[in-house]
């Protein structure tokens, strides 16, 4: 209904992208008002827990208690105001504004969903970060590969195999770090194979990746059925990385329990996000990678070894995906189950696109996807009458919208997916 109205207006006088966004903001505000703002009992309150549920180093602080209806109305007002301003004059940072509006919408929704109850905000944000970890690592792998011009949809398969390798090696050697190193190595080996197919044999990169995904599903399930199921304690029971509390920083209220009380792999993810950003945008090597991904022939003319750059980027990406795979077993449950990655590699791909092929963008969208994931569990507990499946669909739908270029145009590297012929 809303979209037809927009289309009708579009025909009457052509709307630019910024007006379009303004209308989206207004609609979001109105929907919030209609669905969440109205019909609430007067005086009902929402309590947001600001202390994590687990025993934490953080200094305890009082919980945030908000009157439900006024809070929602405040959010509606902000959205409408931004919508009108955007419609009338338009902002330069429209995408950031979109983020603010989305945040207002989510906050209003949470306030509504948890009315009359209490809702542990910090606990949920913390679990969002944890759930975002494999997605973000997958996205970083995708960025490394695609910035150099190699499409890699084999992340799922790479993570599946390295998850299994990690737990088996960690159990056999009784050393989690050995498991992690083995996972990184197996990630490197599989992605080296993908690189060989894509760069040297010039095979269609999606075909090669599909083959890896099918092979990975088959191989891990085969090994699981043949060995792991019978010898669980000898092969498939490694334990997990302990939670490391960073001194001082973990004492900060709210931020401390979210960011500074986590397992090793979460920290690795945070560090790698920064590292990949620096590597890609502030080093000579990164400049070469991007040049190869945008215009390999020009890069070749300038004496850059296109094949070498692509091989190294894809293998580095595979190592990152290997860490992502290790998260599933030695990072979270200490055990391998068949097809346990459950599409996280593909969601990472979506996060990469949503984040516009940049590490920080990908990190932010991974958090968003992780948030949607933990939110749906929370909503089931709160008994909100919205099927959790629809919430889980949201990230995929958002990715598709982003790909159409209506909201926040995402441009892939120009030579992405094209083999280079010397």
């Amino acid at each position: 209904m809303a979209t037809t109205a927009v289309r009708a207006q579009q025909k009457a006088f052509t709307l630019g992208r910024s007006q379009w966004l303004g209308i989206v903001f207004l609609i979001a505000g109105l929907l919030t008002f209609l669905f969440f703002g109205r019909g609430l009992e007067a005086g009902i309150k929402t309590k947001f827990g600001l202390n994590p549920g687990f025993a934490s180093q953080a200094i305890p602080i009082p919980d945030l208690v908000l009157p439900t209806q006024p809070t929602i109305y405040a959010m509606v007002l902000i959205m409408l105001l931004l919508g009108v301003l955007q419609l009338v004059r338009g902002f330069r940072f429209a995408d950031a504004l979109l983020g603010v509006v989305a945040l207002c919408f989510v906050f209003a929704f949470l306030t509504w969903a948890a009315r009359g109850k209490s809702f542990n905000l910090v606990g949920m944000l913390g679990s969002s970060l944890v759930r975002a970890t494999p997605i973000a690592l997958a996205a970083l792998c995708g960025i490394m590969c695609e910035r150099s011009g190699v499409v890699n949809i084999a992340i799922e398969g790479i993570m599946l195999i390295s998850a299994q390798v990690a737990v088996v090696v960690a159990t056999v050697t009784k050393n989690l770090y050995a498991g992690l190193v083995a996972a990184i190595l197996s990630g490197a080996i599989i992605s080296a194979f993908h690189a060989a197919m894509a760069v040297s044999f010039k095979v269609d990169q999606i075909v090669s990746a599909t083959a890896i995904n099918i092979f990975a599903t088959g191989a891990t399930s085969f090994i699981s059925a043949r060995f792991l199921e019978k010898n669980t304690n000898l092969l498939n029971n490694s334990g997990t990385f302990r939670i490391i509390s960073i001194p001082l920083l973990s004492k900060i209220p709210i931020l401390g329990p979210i960011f500074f009380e986590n397992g090793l792999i979460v920290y690795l993810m945070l560090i790698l996000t920064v590292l990949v950003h620096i590597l890609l945008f502030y080093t000579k090597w990164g400049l070469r990678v991007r040049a190869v991904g945008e215009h390999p022939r020009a890069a070749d003319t300038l004496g850059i070894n296109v094949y070498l750059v692509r091989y190294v980027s894809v293998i580095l990406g595979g190592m990152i995906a290997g860490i992502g795979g290790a998260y599933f077993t030695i990072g979270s449950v200490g055990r391998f189950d068949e097809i346990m990655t459950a599409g996280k590699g593909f969601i990472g791909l979506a996060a990469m696109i949503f984040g516009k092929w940049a590490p920080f963008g990908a990190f932010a969208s991974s958090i968003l996807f992780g948030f949607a994931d933990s939110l749906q569990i929370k909503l089931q507990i709160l008994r909100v009458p919205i099927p959790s499946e629809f919430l889980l669909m949201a990230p995929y739908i958002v990715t598709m919208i982003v790909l159409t270029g209506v909201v926040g145009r995402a441009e892939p590297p120009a030579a992405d997916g094209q083999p280079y012929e010397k």
Partner: protein
Amino acid sequence: MGEERKGTASTQTVTRGKQPATGAKKERGILIPPAWQTLLLPVLAVFTGLVIGAIVIVITDAAVVATYRNFFRAPGTALAATWHTIATAYGALLYGSLGNPREVYEGMRLYLSTGDNTLFLRAIWPITESLVAATPYIFGGLAVALGFRCGLFNIGAEGQLGIGALAAAWVGYSITNLPALIHLPLALLAGALGGAIWAAIPGYLKAKTGAHEVVNTIMMNWISFRLSDWLLNGPMKAPGYRPITPNIEPTAALPRFFPPPIRFHAGFFLALIVAGIVYWFLFKTTLGFEIRTVGANPDAARYAGMSITRSIMLAMVLSGALAGLAGTSQVLGVDHWVGQGFTAGYGFDSIALALLGKSHPFGVVLASLLFGTLRSGATRMQSLAGIPIDIISIIQGLVIVFIAAPAIIRWLYRIRVERAEEVVLTRGWGK
């Protein structure tokens, strides 16, 4: 890329003229004409996949590996154990998928002389199961192959298949008191339509905004999984605890030809007919020609005045409809209901089949028969030889690699000749 294709064409004309290429003396190996290579390479790819599968079976068998510790003292024992393991495994695979001709013959004789058909049915059960397994594969493989012909990579067959199956099941159980003559076509149509709609969305986005269909179909897959989770736990749930749909009405079921244990159904013949129609459509009609031209060279197609938007939309919708039929045939012919995880892997398998069949409808049928046979045989192999059914996925992955990179096969078997015609697949998602 353009130059390379031109080069390929000229080499082919040279070899066709029975004049060996000038560079022939440099390379060693067997010279095989390209026309034969297109047939030989898939065969060798499958063969090599099976050989590597055998190696995997042997090296993951602790008992056999143990005999190799004494290899130098008793090489015979080790080799015999190896042979025994492989023979047991692949013997079970063969028996489980094709049955034993002698049993079929004796069962037939018994049936003709006494009218007792139990033996006969038991004897033909394996081969009918193979055909049952091949049926959705044919549809799925055709779906992906049709996309390939238009330069589209439909990774979303999995999602389209699931939505098609749900749509068919819904028509199958919610409408009652219809004659089969109307109900069955209606259910088939619903299934095809469900898949077509699911594929039309990424098709439209590709045609209008250029959003890459690979990402969008992957996203549509996940949306469809969530949607079917919701449908199976809510609106379409049958009474009871399990998240499955109610059974379809008998009037919507695809007819079966044999008494109960045998599940062979009319869907197989439908698949063959559809394969014929797809062949006719792609190679004998103007629209099919346009689709192939857009796939082979979009610029040339545009220059010739063909509508690329229309071809992409059409190819995607038809591809989705075929994928929908894959799910539909399974629901209406075999299961009669839809449960969670129904699609498990069909979509990715379909990609393998389209590649193995070189995106040609008849090639796809052959590839589907092969993989249907392997799948149903593997079930028997699992129970008789204790080898997990997942070995088939390993072989499948390897076959794709060998098909996609024929250089590996040529190198393994020392086959010369520049290269056979290659099917144009996707272009990268950059511009």
